[in-house]
């Protein structure tokens, strides 16, 4: 794209065109949207309701009738994995949104005000970060009880630190900028400066943290439900489908019961991470120089992404 073009396009257009020139972002987006669309049409694609029990055809290996086999009760795995995708993605996205909200608000306040508030929140975040995440989640779950919404709340409460640190760091450097000083000279209130003037400038790391957190939470949900302590078993999530693998017989003989759910988790999480990488490249001004059309060529020739 030429310089002249740049001037005529709006920021959104520039953003979109930059993103499209970023192979990892586009591939990630394709992966994610394919999975999401198939999750929406779960029943139509597999042809069976996820809860349809068919005891005669239980524990069938993958075949043309059941692409991913059937489980102990004869339920179609493909159908269950796709409807599990709905729940898992819902948990991941909502929890990540809430965690980011907490992290952003705390980070903005701590970063702008500094001083005692900053020290306290920083200490808390360090503590929560070092505490093994799963154990912390388990402790919270034992206090709140199981359930899809509780899982989301617990994830939000235990996962806000990355965003908090990013936002805090950005605010630390931004608050010395001239336009903030101008704001203060105008006598704008602190909330107005923080949320209206500074926050929009920190959007890009927040967006990247949002995608990374989705991936982390989806994996965490899988682990938690695998242990039987996450979402109640009646709701099919990717993690709950993996619970079957607690049984050694399943691990040994019915591999499709745990390989396919795990593969769908891995695929989706990879997709989310790719999008995150792509967004980082496009949004981070320090990486701007790397954005060229040649990236696709480079990618196809075999050099992957732009990592340093």
């Amino acid at each position: 794209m030429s310089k002249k073009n740049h001037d005529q396009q709006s920021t959104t257009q520039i953003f979109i065109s930059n993103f499209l020139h970023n192979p990892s972002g586009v591939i990630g987006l394709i992966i994610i949207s394919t999975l999401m669309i198939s999750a929406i049409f779960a029943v139509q694609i597999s042809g069976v309701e996820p809860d349809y029990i068919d005891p005669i055809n239980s524990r069938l290996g993958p075949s043309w009738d059941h692409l991913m086999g059937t489980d102990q009760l004869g339920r179609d795995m493909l159908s269950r994995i796709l409807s599990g995708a709905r729940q898992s993605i819902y948990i991941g996205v909502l929890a990540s949104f809430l965690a980011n909200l907490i992290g952003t608000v705390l980070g903005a306040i701590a970063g702008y005000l500094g001083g005692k508030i900053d020290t306290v929140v920083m200490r808390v975040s360090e503590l929560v970060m070092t505490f093994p995440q799963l154990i912390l989640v388990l402790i919270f779950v034992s206090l709140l009880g199981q359930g899809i919404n509780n899982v989301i709340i617990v994830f939000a409460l235990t996962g806000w630190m990355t965003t908090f640190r990013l936002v805090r760091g950005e605010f630390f450097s931004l608050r010395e900028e001239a336009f903030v000083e101008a704001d203060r000279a105008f006598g704008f209130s602190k909330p107005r400066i923080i949320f209206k003037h500074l926050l929009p400038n920190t959007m890009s790391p927040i967006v990247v943290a949002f995608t990374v957190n989705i991936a982390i939470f989806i994996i965490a949900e899988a682990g938690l439900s695998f242990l039987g302590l996450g979402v109640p078993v009646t709701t099919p999530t990717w993690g709950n489908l993996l619970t079957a693998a607690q049984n050694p017989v399943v691990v040994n003989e019915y591999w499709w019961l745990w390989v396919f759910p795990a593969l769908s988790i891995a695929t989706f999480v990879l997709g989310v991470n790719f999008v995150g990488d792509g967004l980082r490249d496009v949004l981070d001004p320090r990486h701007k120089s790397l954005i060229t059309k040649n990236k696709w060529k480079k990618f196809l020739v075999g050099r992957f992404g732009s990592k340093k």
Partner: protein
Amino acid sequence: MAFTISALIFFASRLSPIDPINAMVPPDMAADSANLVQLREELGLNDHIILQYFHWLKDIMTGEFGYSLQSGQKISEILALRMPATLELVLSALILSTILALTLGLFAGAKRGGIADKLSRVFAVIGIAVPDFFIGLALLNVFAYRVEWLPTGNRIAPGQVTFWDRFPHLILPVATLTIAMLAVLIRYTRNSVLDTLNRDFVMTARSKGVPEWRVLYSHVFRNSLGPVMVILAFRLPLLVGGSILVETVFQWPGIGTTIIAAVSASDYPVIMVISMLIAMVILVASFLVDIVKSLLDPRVRLGGGK
């Protein structure tokens, strides 16, 4: 700090809706309410909550961890039984993953696009996208069921005593944990090495004619250890907490599986003690980070700099 954490843990546990009496006394015996009242009094549950907190704190300090609600066992006994298993598992995985990650990371950073770099990318992708228990399940399926080289789980089979009897049991869990820990560590080492390679003193060393392996080993490697050490120190709490998922997959009788059992049974004294221990290790770890940093960086050691 330790004080704050202990208070947090204590009051959080009291927020839970579970009445310890209900958990301790089977429902058919609960009819005798006079005894219940007496039990409540004996356990100090009628005292003011602040008073209860100080009682608990004193007990913890003196090593009196109390009893498990679930089994009635002394918590200190449970810990003594389970702790060695977790230490054995996590310590081996920590050491192994550190050695592997440092070597791979160093070579990956030193020669970008080389074999080590490609290998480390594979590990990074696995580490990001694959849940760690899935690695365990896959290893289990292949090495324990398909080819039957290694046992499927547990720490020890009946009748086996020596370390060499136990050793095969250790391989798969340690391998799983190592792979799970590798990804982040390799990435940090690699980036840190890359950063160091761009520093001026590396160029100085090279222009002095120092052989490349020495540049890498005594100039680059030592200077890129800092951030890696921080990650490692943050993993020390695992020594006490264990890796819940890996322990579950391999039915490893460690702290991780104890936590699971405690959480499922709302056995809150056990949860409280273990979280307290983890918090203590965290405090020690962050202290260690400062020490190690100062050992690695002469500027901090001499108290100079800013």
